[in-house]
């Protein structure tokens, strides 16, 4: 079955010439069609992309406020740190969710070449989610909280998110049912399975859980399984779709790689949740299961390099969005495949658990890989509806460097802080407050790098949103 893959791997390691492609498989050069399927309802994804880009810009600004307070704790604040952090964590999960749904809509339609079942539902879903998010952030900022990490959203807002996801699932399933045979397309089955599992993972988290152990187990259904399994499935479909738009990568080959990638993500991701269950009062076997499947999780991270390499070999359109895809793959390898795997190993984890190193990994994986992939694809989709002039392209490219260098700076500083915590708390047995004082210089460097990151984020959001507004104005003339 995977004969062709084995051949390929063999050819990488030997100097053997590549097997020649059968003449019938050589396709005439079609050039790159940046919008291969001109379906009108793809535009339903546009508002998702614009809102995602906007929320991302805003997210950086609030994060700065938090970082500032940690370094200058005597500054007066509008929002208490503990409430601001809850907002930060919720933003970190919710704008990528919104973006993922938008780009999944777009690339599902593109893959199965069908119009969306209902743009009305997509619009209702969108506004429902926007109001839910804004209400949630306001409530959290005011101190209402359900007090579980990442799941602080008060119940009405959790229900709003659940309802939004359900509308999404309904809409995409009805769309695929318009052409039932298209269920066999990788995009369809992967997006549908990812979405249904996302809903299933959220549902039990609506309730108050009496015992602390199941409470922790269920928390990671969102903080791990959403990000490293179910939503990641939707993201990889969109990444492959975007690569097919941006490059001349061979469609049939990339689709096979997509299936392999998705299979690996599911195979590894679900049981790798065990790497959050090492010290939660659960049986010891999670140390082995979590450890082994965390290693397996590194495989799709490295496979994503192969996927983008295939695309890089061919011609491509110059679009700033492509940089963000490269950035996403980079952090997938470094933040997820390398750092993530390192800290997931049980004997390492025992020493770094509960330190800033977790925060380092969280930012590199959740933003560096996931969020950056989402905003990159959103940027690409927006550029289909609003042409970017030279200035805008310059700004978008600038924002790419500011964001990524800023991220590297922030997380480098925080990683050092985490290593200090590891060494001094667990190694040397120092008291908590003594260590906290030592960390301030690193939190300060994080603040400075965070300024760079946020500047990039704001420039990025401004560029794409203003270009869209300009395009709309001139369309109305």
């Amino acid at each position: 079955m995977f004969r062709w893959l084995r051949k390929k791997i063999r050819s990488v390691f030997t100097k053997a010439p590549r097997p020649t492609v059968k003449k019938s498989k050589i396709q005439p050069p079609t050039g790159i069609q940046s919008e291969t399927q001109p379906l009108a309802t793809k535009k339903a994804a546009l508002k998702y992309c614009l809102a995602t880009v906007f929320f991302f810009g805003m997210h950086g600004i609030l994060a700065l406020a938090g970082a500032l307070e940690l370094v200058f704790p005597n500054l007066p604040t509008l929002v208490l740190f503990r409430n601001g952090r809850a907002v930060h964590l919720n933003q970190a999960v919710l704008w990528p969710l919104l973006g993922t749904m938008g780009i999944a809509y777009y690339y599902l339609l593109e893959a199965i070449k069908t119009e969306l079942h209902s743009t009305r539902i997509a619009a209702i879903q969108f506004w429902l989610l926007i109001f839910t998010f804004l209400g949630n952030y306001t409530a959290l900022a005011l101190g209402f909280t359900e007090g579980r990490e990442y799941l602080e959203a008060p119940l009405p807002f959790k229900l709003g998110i659940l309802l939004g996801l359900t509308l999404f699932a309904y809409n995409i399933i009805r769309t695929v049912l318009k052409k039932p045979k298209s269920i066999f397309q990788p995009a369809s089955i992967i997006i549908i399975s990812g979405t249904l599992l996302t809903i299933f993972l959220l549902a039990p988290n609506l309730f108050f859980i009496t015992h602390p152990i199941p409470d922790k187990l269920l928390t990671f259904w969102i903080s791990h399984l959403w990000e490293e399994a179910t939503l990641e499935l939707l993201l990889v479909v969109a990444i492959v779709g975007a690569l097919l738009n941006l490059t001349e990568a061979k469609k049939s080959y990339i689709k096979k790689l997509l299936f392999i990638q998705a299979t690996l993500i599911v195979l590894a991701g679900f049981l790798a949740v065990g790497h959050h269950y090492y010290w939660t009062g659960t049986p010891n076997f999670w140390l082995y299961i979590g450890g082994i499947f965390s290693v397996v999780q590194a495989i799709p991270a490295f496979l994503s390099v192969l996927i983008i390499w295939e695309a890089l070999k061919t011609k491509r359109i110059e679009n700033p969005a492509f940089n963000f895809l490269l950035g996403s793959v980079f952090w997938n390898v470094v933040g997820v495949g390398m750092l993530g795997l390192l800290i997931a190993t049980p004997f390492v984890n025992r020493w770094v658990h509960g330190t800033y190193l977790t925060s380092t990994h969280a930012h590199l994986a959740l933003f560096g890989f996931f969020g950056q992939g989402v905003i990159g694809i959103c940027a690409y989709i927006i550029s289909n509806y609003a042409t970017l002039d030279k200035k805008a392209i310059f700004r978008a490219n600038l924002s790419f460097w500011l964001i990524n260098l800023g991220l590297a700076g922030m997380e480098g500083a925080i990683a050092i802080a985490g290593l200090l915590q590891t060494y001094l708390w667990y190694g040397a047995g120092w008291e908590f407050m003594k260590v906290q004082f030592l960390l301030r210089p690193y939190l300060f460097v994080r603040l400075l790098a965070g300024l760079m990151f946020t500047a990039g984020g704001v420039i990025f959001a401004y560029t794409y949103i203003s270009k869209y507004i300009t395009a709309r104005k001139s369309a109305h003339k």
Partner: protein
Amino acid sequence: MKKYWFVYVATVFVSVGAFLYLTLFSINHIASLNVPEDALLGKVVWQQNGCIECHTIFGDGGYNAPDMTHETTRRTGEWLRAFFQNRPVMRPSQSKRHPGLGSEDTEHLIRYLQFVDRIKINNWPPKPLK
């Protein structure tokens, strides 16, 4: 392409099934899912006050305050009651005080933290090397 489809779908069922089975097994393995009433009320206090944003339990949470998993071993009940009564300044700030709790809430929270303390968690945190 259909072969890949079947492998993918089969993997979904197998992985999700295995994960659910092992999760249920872990929950059944807990000595008793029964949480005493006052500890339960303490969990409500813990959640309502957003303690997890700065503190950690089992090492998960915020990194700006100590881990609370074994706090009731380190500190006596008296010390904790005084803490929530006096609301000390949170260093390095010179004015911001730690959130306070009423006496009932304090009692419940202490019971909850004692309950958490008794849970065996595989020798974490590690003992200092020195």
